[in-house]
């Protein structure tokens, strides 16, 4: 997108993605990593980027141990300081990390992260629609699992 867009007259998804990136720039290190990741996924080359990032994550695990191994691998690539400035590699690892959490939840409702369910729900809601279809479905199942856990009164 050109560097002098009219965010209003160009009322497309790319405008929103640009706005998100600009808001992240404004917040600097205070921008939430989920918002940074959302802005990255929604950018014009975002779906291609997320596909490439997630293509490294095959085959999809068939056990909780497998999802935990994924999560641990992803987590090793996340340096907090890099994540907060939107470093592409840190964002890629963060996306893989979220996918591992979603995958485990969708698999059998197990939470493999200490992150609060509120944060996980937000990540599933915000990032889910921005990634490829097969992962969207996993994120949706994970969100349904979270709802069931909430309805049954238990915590994760």
């Amino acid at each position, binding site marked *: 997108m050109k560097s002098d867009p009219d*965010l209003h007259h160009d009322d497309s998804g790319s405008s929103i993605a640009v706005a998100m990136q600009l808001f992240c720039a404004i917040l600097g290190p205070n921008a939430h990593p989920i918002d940074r990741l959302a802005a990255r996924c929604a950018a014009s080359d975002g779906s291609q980027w997320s596909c490439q990032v997630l293509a490294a994550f095959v085959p999809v695990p068939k056990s909780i141990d497998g999802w935990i191994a994924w999560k641990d691998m992803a987590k090793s690539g996340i340096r907090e300081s890099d994540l907060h400035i939107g470093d592409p590699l840190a964002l890629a690892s963060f996306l893989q990390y979220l996918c591992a959490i979603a995958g485990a939840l969708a698999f059998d409702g197990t939470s493999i992260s200490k992150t609060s369910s509120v944060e996980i729900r937000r990540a599933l809601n915000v990032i889910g629609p921005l990634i490829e279809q097969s992962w969207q479905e996993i994120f949706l199942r994970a969100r349904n699992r979270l709802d069931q856990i909430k309805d049954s009164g238990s915590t994760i």
Partner: protein
Amino acid sequence: MSTTTDPPTPSRLFPETQTVWIADRLSEGEAGIMLANGYLMESYVRPLSIYCSKIGLARSVRIEADDLVHGFFANRLSNSEYLKSWLTSGLRLRQWLRNGLHFYVHELRRQNATQLGLQIGDQELTQEVPSDGAAHDHEFERAWALAALDLAMKETKVELEKRGRRDEWEMFWSHHVEGVPHAKIGERFQMSSAQVAQRTFAVAAQLRDALCGILRKDGALGSQIDLEVRSMMEVLNEIRS
């Protein structure tokens, strides 16, 4: 020389007072009121107009959305007390204007009905659009978020251009929007990575200051700016999902 009618210079240290800029303009008499009105038109016509189009408010009075909003401003801002009433309302300026626009539409509908010799009840008057409060709020907040950011961008670019530093906007854009690493941008502008990082950081701060100025004029407290920005992002995220 600085005059009392200059827009406030944004600063990282904001006083914990709301509505200062518009209150100051209103205290300056005719010239100040004109400046405040001009600012309102520049900042709020577009989000209000988009809101009118999206929720069908303009259709309900058979007027184009832009014409409806311009008519609303012309009608209300011709009364010097209108903005003074906002100062004591406790509402954010955008909410005040949106409410005012709905009242204006009620008035138009009543006028139209009177001209046609129709009897129209208060209940019918308030049903100018199908009721979908939350979704309508959302449309407006979204339009407002984009308008405020757009305005902040324009202010920042104008300021950079005035100082002959348009290149710095390009650097900022390349890094934050296009995701180009500092080192690569440096090759294009014959600068070190650190120099590019310093400049993109400075532009981000300038954009932030411009947005802060807009939010403060809308009635936000200086200490709430990060919160405000986050809620704007939330609105955009929700639309997308």
